[in-house]
């Protein structure tokens, strides 16, 4: 109950993880020093570049990880479908700026689905689905979305904003349709449902977005080259290296402010800490959950769009969400699930382990490098953290749960 309890819980942990982390850091530093001696190629610019590339990757994972961590904090569900929400966000952005491949009737069919989802969202704030405002909202959503899907081409910034909103609606709809009826069900049922939703979205993506690798190159200056020198070495990259971490930072700050300062944000934190008492204070828990899904999905959509920008293309819908999704989940757990700063820290850990490690263990004639294994790092880290310190880096005790 007292302050000393919190401290002792935080410091009185076993030392094995620290030993392992220390060893890994030592190996990394040693390796950097060693590389510096063997070749001109490995100068300060090389490591700077590797570092900021990792930072960029980490911020992409962070955007997805925040969604996992928020949903887990509120309803204790690993939202397996979150990776697919990220995929949906990427594709929606793409179609919004590149022009849609849909004819009117197909667009109308999709528009109907979007309008329905939108109405379910409005239902939360108006109480009834048959409320005039909800009906009008649905009709407007039907018109706008059909129009947008069939004809509209907008610039990247608007595309990003629209797609964030639409993906948010997708997130809420998933919660309303699939998770809401299972609030009191055993957790395994909920998890199986989440897997089913994930599979559904993968294949719906196939149906809706066509099954191919899609180039993702909007006509913006953001892709232009950008270079700077550090300690005599030149680092050549694009403006993305500035833009992506910057946008992520802005979004994370906005989210943190929302959660800490607004009434609904406080209700979210209260619900995460003690849902029953939050309800006793008059908080509508369902509305809070919907908001959580909305915010998480919006961030995932932003992540998806930037993912496309970063790699210049987006993968087939059936596979795009899986690996980033599960890595971001790993990030959330590594950071300490339920904690916002934890998700960002965990994402950075994953980003660095994936990018920086492969950069400093490159292929040499006698060594194949570890590039091929980089996708397994997240899993290995995840398993390690779960077995050694399930509360993650930031941990339950110190973190601010959402």
């Amino acid at each position, binding site marked *: *109950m*007292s302050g*000393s*309890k919190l401290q002792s*819980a935080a410091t009185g942990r076993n030392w094995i993880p620290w030993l392992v982390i220390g060893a890994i850091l030592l190996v990394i530093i040693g390796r950097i020093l060693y590389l510096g001696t063997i070749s001109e190629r490995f100068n300060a610019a090389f490591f700077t570049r590797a570092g900021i590339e990792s930072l960029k990757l980490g911020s992409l994972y962070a955007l997805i990880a925040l969604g996992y961590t928020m949903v887990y904090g509120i309803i204790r569900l690993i939202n397996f479908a979150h990776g697919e929400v990220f995929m949906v966000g990427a594709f929606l952005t793409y179609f919004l700026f590149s022009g849609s491949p849909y004819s009117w009737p197909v667009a109308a069919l999709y528009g109907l689905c979007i309008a329905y989802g939108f109405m379910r969202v409005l239902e939360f704030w108006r109480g009834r689905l048959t409320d005039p405002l909800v009906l009008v909202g649905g009709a407007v959503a039907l018109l706008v979305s059909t129009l947008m899907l069939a004809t509209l081409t907008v610039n990247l910034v608007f595309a990003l904003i629209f797609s964030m909103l639409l993906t948010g609606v997708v997130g809420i709809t998933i919660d309303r349709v699939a998770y809401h009826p299972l609030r009191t069900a055993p957790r395994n049922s909920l998890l199986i449902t989440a897997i089913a939703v994930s599979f559904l979205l993968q294949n719906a993506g196939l149906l809706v977005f066509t099954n191919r690798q899609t180039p993702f190159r909007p006509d913006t200056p953001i892709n232009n080259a950008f270079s700077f020198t550090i300690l005599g070495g030149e680092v050549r990259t694009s403006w993305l290296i500035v833009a992506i971490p910057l946008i992520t930072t802005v979004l994370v700050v906005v989210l943190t402010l929302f959660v800490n300062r607004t009434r609904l944000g406080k209700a979210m934190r209260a619900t995460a800490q003690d849902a029953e008492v939050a309800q006793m204070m008059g908080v509508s828990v369902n509305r809070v959950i919907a908001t959580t899904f909305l915010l998480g999905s919006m961030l995932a959509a932003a992540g998806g769009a930037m993912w496309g920008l970063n790699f210049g293309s987006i993968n087939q819908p059936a596979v795009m969400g899986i690996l980033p999704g599960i890595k971001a989940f790993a990030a959330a757990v590594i950071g300490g699930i339920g904690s916002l700063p934890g998700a960002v820290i965990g994402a950075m850990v994953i980003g660095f382990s994936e990018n920086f490690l492969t950069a400093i263990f490159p292929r040499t004639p006698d060594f194949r490098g570890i590039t091929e294994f980089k996708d397994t790092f997240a899993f290995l880290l995840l398993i390690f953290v779960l077995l050694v310190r399930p509360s993650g880096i930031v941990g339950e005790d110190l973190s601010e749960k959402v």
Partner: protein
Amino acid sequence: MAMLEIEGVNKAFGGLQAITSLDLRVEKGEIVSVIGPNGAGKTTLFNLITGVYRPDSGNIQFQGRSIVGKKPNQIVDLGVARTFQNLRLFTNLTVLDNVLIPQHHKLNSTWFSAVLKTPAYRRKEQEMREFALEKLSFFGPRLMSFRLYQPVYVLSYANRRRTEIARAMATGAKLLLLDEPSAGMNPKETTEITQIIRRMRDEGGYTILLVEHKMNLVGEISDRVVVLDYGEKIAEGAYQQVVNDPKVIEAYLGKRVDDDEGASPEEPGLPR
């Protein structure tokens, strides 16, 4: 050698001291009751004895062997079994299965011979069944016949309590820890369970440590009563003596704030 011997056991959760330097001895063939208001640490005590929690300090000995640091299933192997306050039966399994499962740890066949149903395994299975029926028969015909094959979730609350006690007996334990065996039972059922607990000691040879709230049950069967309050033992002894102890009454009813009554609180005048 005492059946169970607890010496100076402490247990804290965070800053909250749940059990404070507790000493307790249970001799073979005794029925000892632990009573005390909510949150006094009774269930924590059970969790400590059965290995769910590990004491911060102190020693717990069962038949002269320390059981501190052992896993719950190892402690069952040694001969201590328990029931749970809020019923932890295997709800979707039948009554018979529920009473067969605790005998699994005594099975010496491998899983492979269990799959092949070797004669040795069949014999063992038959023995397990008879043992289960013997334990269930403590409760009369209630749980026999067709009830054996009913899943636990269709049983009445009282029958679930009975099944849970039979399940604990079926582990083959010598010391039983019963956590509120009569909770949720009506007066008649309580009377019956009181007799059964006594019979368990007299006929079954069990030693029984009991947590209970119904005082008439406690008064009727206990050889000794131990009163806990805030994790500390505040009284121990025969029922009459303990219940009339002002400290005990205060623990239950709270401190008197109005001093008009004078120094001596009214005697509650407990019967029996």
